[in-house]
């Protein structure tokens, strides 16, 4: 009521006091009613209102800018080069070739009715969580992806329309509104949206540092858990991504053992997002949570694995995600929830054929790894040339790059200024670490599997120019 004083001064005396109280109150009421009316006329629910708003995270803003002004070597050479989308465009030709040899123009081609054009069998209602044949083919595929050492049980698979609903469904099954998951940082920006929007669940970041290669420490987990408990918040689980996004490192076996042990002691769940398991290009050994559980005598009922075909098979548009759970109650609940997010029947039919062709899949996975490695090598040698550091990683479609050398000071504000410069001046979209909740400013995720070799070089050149500009402006 700061207005009261000057008004009092103007009018003076008792009249001023009354006016000085009345006017601000009236103003406040008027503005409040206007806001209510505004909300009322907009008529969207309170929980949907923030969702309806435009995205503010640089992760989404960058993607949006690229779609308005996308780089094209011929048509738009001054457009923005996309390094912010972890998509793999390197092996689609292999699938295209497979399609032309195996489908004979039909949208289905499976077993005994290979090449048959019939639409029967895929039009009607299917089990919401996917047809058995696809679950079987998926179990086999996942096994191939993980090197053939683990076998997956098709009856523990729940298929969803992409990994996005998979993780949301798992959250709905494991946590009530107000509960929390511990998530090591930096993490995929989409988790903030996918896991919390409609579930009411919260994410508690557990910070990882460059000093130990961004590998999660149990001490940090413990601290985060204790702090949550002090606040009276119930932690229901830990979410890890392995290979990690955005860093691209693989969790060591010991770390996984320690995490499982921690989960057991605290009696919480563990979700392992392994969507990049088939995109491992380095020589490090990959330990899927399934592999650890297979080998050791851990209590499996708290473990769940997320997977999907968007990254390893580049089929993001086909919407195929997987929840693999060792907990029967979770499976039962998740299956029911897939009614809201089922895989489209023609897509299921196509994938049964594709994934069952194990010799093609074997060749595909090997070629895919080689091509990703090639691009990775080109990209990091480019970074080396321009004196920019990065984390040496083994998995994923991206590189975790340290651009703090291009910053004048070491804080988030500077990082975002650099991001802006890269996006709008250099015309390169990379995801700033702050969008991934990184505790150390200056890190950027750069995806390199959507570009040709030549375009990677152009991107590096543009980053170099920014580096030079920054050096000269110091």
């Amino acid at each position: 009521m700061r207005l009261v004083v000057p008004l009092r001064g103007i009018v003076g005396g008792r009249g001023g006091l009354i006016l000085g109280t009345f006017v601000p109150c009236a103003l406040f009421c008027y503005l409040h009613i206007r806001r209510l009316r505004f909300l009322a006329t907009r008529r969207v629910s309170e929980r949907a209102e923030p969702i309806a708003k435009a995205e503010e995270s640089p992760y989404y803003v960058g993607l949006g800018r690229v779609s308005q002004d996308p780089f094209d070597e011929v048509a738009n050479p001054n457009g923005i080069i996309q390094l912010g989308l972890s998509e793999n465009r390197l092996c689609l030709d292999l699938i295209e070739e497979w399609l032309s040899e195996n489908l004979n123009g039909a949208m289905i081609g499976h077993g005994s009715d290979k090449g048959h054009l019939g639409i029967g069998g895929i039009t009607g209602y299917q089990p919401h969580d996917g047809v058995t044949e696809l679950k079987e083919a998926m179990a086999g595929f996942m096994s191939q992806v993980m090197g053939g050492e683990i076998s997956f049980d098709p009856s523990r698979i729940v298929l969803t329309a992409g990994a996005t609903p998979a993780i949301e469904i798992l959250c709905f099954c494991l946590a009530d509104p107000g509960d929390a998951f511990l998530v090591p940082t930096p993490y995929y920006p989409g988790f903030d949206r996918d896991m919390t929007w409609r579930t009411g669940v919260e994410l508690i970041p557990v910070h990882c540092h460059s000093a130990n290669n961004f590998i999660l420490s149990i001490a940090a987990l413990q601290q985060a858990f204790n702090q949550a408990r002090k606040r009276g918040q119930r932690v229901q689980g830990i979410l890890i991504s392995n290979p990690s996004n955005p860093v691209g490192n693989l969790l060591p076996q010991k770390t996984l053992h320690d995490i499982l042990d921690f989960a057991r002691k605290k009696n919480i769940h563990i979700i392992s997002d392994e969507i990049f398991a088939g995109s491992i290009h380095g020589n490090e050994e990959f330990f899927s949570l399934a592999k650890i559980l297979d080998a050791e005598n851990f209590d499996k009922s708290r473990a769940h694995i997320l997977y999907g075909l968007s990254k390893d098979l580049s089929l993001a548009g086909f919407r195929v995600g997987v929840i693999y759970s060792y907990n029967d109650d979770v499976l039962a609940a998740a299956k029911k929830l897939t009614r809201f997010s089922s895989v489209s029947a023609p897509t299921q039919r196509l994938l049964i054929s594709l994934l069952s062709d194990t010799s093609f899949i074997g060749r595909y996975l090997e070629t895919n790894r080689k091509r990703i490695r090639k691009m990775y090598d080109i990209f990091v040698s480019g970074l080396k040339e321009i004196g920019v550091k990065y984390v040496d990683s083994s998995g994923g479609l991206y590189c975790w790059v340290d651009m703090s050398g291009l910053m004048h000071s070491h804080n988030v504000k500077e990082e975002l200024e650099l991001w802006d410069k890269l996006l709008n001046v250099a015309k390169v979209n990379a995801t700033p670490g702050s969008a991934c909740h990184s505790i150390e400013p200056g890190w950027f995720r750069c995806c390199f599997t959507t570009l040709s070799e030549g375009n990677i070089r152009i991107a590096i050149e543009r980053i170099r120019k920014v580096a030079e500009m920054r050096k000269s402006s110091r």
Partner: protein
Amino acid sequence: MRLMLSGKATCNSHGQDSSYFLGWEEYEKNPYDQTRNPQGIIQMGLAENQLSFDLLESWLSENQDIAGFKRNGKSIFRELALFQDYHGLPEFKKALVQFMEEIRGNKVSFDPNKIVLTAGATSANETLIFCLAEKGDAILIPTPYYPGFDRDLKWRTGAEIVPIHCTSSNGFKITARALERAYQEAQNRNLKVKGVLVTNPSNPLGTTMTQAELDLLMDFIIEKQIHLVSDEIYSGTVFSSPNYTSIMEVLSKYEKAEVWDRVHVVYSLSKDLGLPGFRVGAIYSNNDSIVAAATKMSSFGLVSSQTQYFLSALLSDKKFTKNYISENKKRLKKRHASLVSGLQNAGISCLESNAGLFSWVDMRHLLKSNTFKAEMELWEKIVYDVKLNISPGLSCHCSEPGWFRVCFANMTEETLEIAIQRIKAFVESVSRGHDKAIGGKKCLNINLRKKFSKWVFRLSFHDREAGER
């Protein structure tokens, strides 16, 4: 110490009604097959349109390129494989709205920018409720209604459904009094009413709403300042007069009014095109906030780009859609007439209907007493003795016992004939005073009765995999 799951995962009350799904279970144990199991249970509880596959198949055989991811001879596989934009494939949205316009006799026009694609109408309805209501808010729905709403609209959203009771006295039409009563009931329960949800054409009634009902609804939502959701999933199945009037037609008179952005339509290709497995649904709204929020939420249930592309080609073929719409209606009309006349010969009447894939059948005269207990007893006999899976009115929240939904579009003409014969035989035996308990005394089995009481009068944790509506 027990590992904790969420309340939603462990609750038993996510709207799964017993009787509706128990019939399914029995059917699946003993499904009718013309050659292999002619004594099995005939499925008449599945509202699926299987009458016009041949039209889809012949289109497919003439357009193989489309299924092979080709456009004008050129492969667009790459483009489709990577396409995950929640705004949807523009060519599909355009084709879909044009199809929706065609179904409505081109009396309304739809803007492709106002449509949100979802993985089926199930997802569309849930998403819309997330956008319109908070946890604990109420949606008013006329009874009888599709049993799946109890699950789809309430489970994750936390919303409540308050029924608008409609009765046979006026053909189950919505009245001003019923609307007002429902609103009052919500208030008495301290529930904030956010909107009314209607299915037009109606499931399970198979009728289209009259102009009077539509105007009544508009007046009601204007007065109460609430939303209206019109689930028009059966709009393409209107096979006889009166002509279909979509809420969008009525809304066109209110373009400058405040209510303009409080009316929303849900659609799907599951019924009209008989493609429930494809998982294609849509929300249509003039409200940009709702379109914005729903678009983003559709990330949790996008339509496969492969499917979008295929359907954009199918629906853009005007020659196909024109022929399909009219031929499909003819077949539905004929099949409906077979069922209705067959039932009439057995002394059973149906609510006069002009749409949908089912009839709302009046078996009140076959009840031992005018109670839901008697309805359940009759239903047991029909499932176990007559060997027909039909849906009891109780499962649809009908306020009067004795009504059943019987589907006719998910079987061959021959199978329907057999079903009618079975009903006729049953009715004759009832009128002769015998109770033909074929297959032993299953329905008198005490354990089974107990199971029924538990199931009918207390929601239980059971799901059906196959679909619904």
